[in-house]
């Protein structure tokens, strides 16, 4: 028994499972309260109060929502391709969840799933797999609106993925590493601009890259103003028209998981990760605060801007964002080359 407990493989597996469970449950909690926050913020932006009946201030609303989703009738269209129809909602959640493995939530090994030395590439691999859920969901439903939504979404996500990838290269050049932990460490110092001490976060070196990353993040997560795959005025509900009950719930969950994971990546790449004033033990708190600010930004934008037209979306992605991010890469590379590392 003692030998079994000291087996390094088993210890590795045990801690991996513990971390996975903690991250999974924390994220499920954040998702349900982000949805609640979204409804509240939307309500106040439209001069309403939002949900306020279930529990104090409506705080138990997420539980009621999930309960309702579970008890809904599950409906599968007669001509749908059954297996793919079932797999698509799972594919919507899994890549979004896997991304959290590389996010350093705080200082030290305990707060990061694994310090992969190609961490950022894992994020891009997972976001390129995320396209499948929506495309397949739309295709398997055997519904014209769903198919149109799915195809729109795949075209949109492929187009914006390029600009997103290029916008992070500036950060990689400054940090000199693909590991998320290394990227956070590279932002740990303070810059002294005269009497002012400013943290050396990448947002100050790469403001353009941060702007491009956030815009493409909206497009990748199919959030307004880029929510064309589910434009209800023209496509009923887009790719999830035929989905009901918890299958719809999984698509919904996947969308919000994606928002959270992409915000975690943005915090890590551009906002200094867990760095902040005070002792290192406050790292997790700083991370959560920055994450909360970005999530609020996502909600704020959704209820402020109207949806883009499809040709505007494509023109913007290919003719504006892509050249800008390429220019940013060239400029950053030149600066890093001539200053020998740190800008």
């Amino acid at each position, binding site marked *: 028994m003692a030998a079994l407990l000291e087996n390094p493989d088993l210890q590795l597996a045990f801690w991996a499972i513990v971390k996975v469970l903690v991250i999974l449950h924390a994220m499920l909690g954040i998702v349900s309260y982000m949805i609640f926050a979204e409804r509240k913020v939307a309500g106040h932006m439209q001069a309403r109060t939002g949900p306020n009946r279930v529990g104090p201030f409506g705080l138990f609303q997420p539980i009621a929502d999930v309960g309702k989703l579970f008890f809904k009738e599950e409906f599968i269209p007669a001509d749908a391709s059954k297996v793919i129809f079932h797999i698509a909602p799972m594919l919507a959640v899994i890549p979004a969840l896997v991304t959290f493995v590389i996010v350093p939530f705080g200082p030290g090994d305990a707060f990061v799933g694994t310090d992969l030395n190609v961490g950022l590439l894992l994020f*891009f691999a997972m976001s*390129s797999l995320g396209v499948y859920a929506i495309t397949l969901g739309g295709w398997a439903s055997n519904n014209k609106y769903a198919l149109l939504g799915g195809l729109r979404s795949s075209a949109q996500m492929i187009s914006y993925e390029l600009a997103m990838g290029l916008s992070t290269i500036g950060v990689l050049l400054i940090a000199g590493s693909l590991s998320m932990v290394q990227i956070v460490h590279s932002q740990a110092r303070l810059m002294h601009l005269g009497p002012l001490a400013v943290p050396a976060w990448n947002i100050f070196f790469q403001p353009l890259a941060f702007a491009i990353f956030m815009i493409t993040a909206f497009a990748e997560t199919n959030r307004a103003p880029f929510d064309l795959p589910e434009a209800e005025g023209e496509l009923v509900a887009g790719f999830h028209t035929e989905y009901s009950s918890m299958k719809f719930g999984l698509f919904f969950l996947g969308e919000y998981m994606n928002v959270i994971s992409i915000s975690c990546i943005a915090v890590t790449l551009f906002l200094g990760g867990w760095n902040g004033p005070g002792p290192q033990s406050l790292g997790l708190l700083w991370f959560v605060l920055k994450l909360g600010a970005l999530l609020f930004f996502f909600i704020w934008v959704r209820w402020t801007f109207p949806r883009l037209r499809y040709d505007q979306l494509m023109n913007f992605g290919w003719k504006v964002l892509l050249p800008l991010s390429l220019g940013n890469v060239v400029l950053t590379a030149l600066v890093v080359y001539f200053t020998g590392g740190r800008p």
Partner: protein
Amino acid sequence: MTPYLFIGFAALLVTSSLLVILHRNPVTSALFLVLAFCSLAGIYLLLQAEFVGMVQIIVYAGAIMVLFLFVIMYLNLSHDIESGVQIALRRGTGWLVGAVVVAEGLALVGRHWFPGPFLEAIPGPRVGNTQQIGQALYTRYLFPFEITSMLLLVAMVGLIVIAKGRTAPPAAGDSGGPR
């Protein structure tokens, strides 16, 4: 643990690759191809080639497979009826190429050029192989690398010419609207 993981990934890879060619529905075949690419990426990870593994998913499973799915969906291959001669020709070529590949594999294994699956990994320097690949690409293999990118550029320009060149420009005064 590594041998067990290798067996798992390898079994998944072989099964899904077989299903790619054996399954009747082209969309399902394409999905099994994605699974095959992902399990191949897993094997790369076991070989400590993290960069190659991730790029395998990003490039093959992500980008190419989406385009492949587009083609399958638009062509609607399940209703594509071909004449017997074409099928016979294709099957014949398939068997021929397959036989050659199997013969090659047998020859390689027979002469012990592959030492077997459970070779100990050679520990490389722990700087991460992204850096090493980058340095190799931009110094030793710079010329082939640039030639490849030129090739892709030519293909891209050609595609745009084919897509746009044939349509005549609208005549003067033609609003292009319905008549």
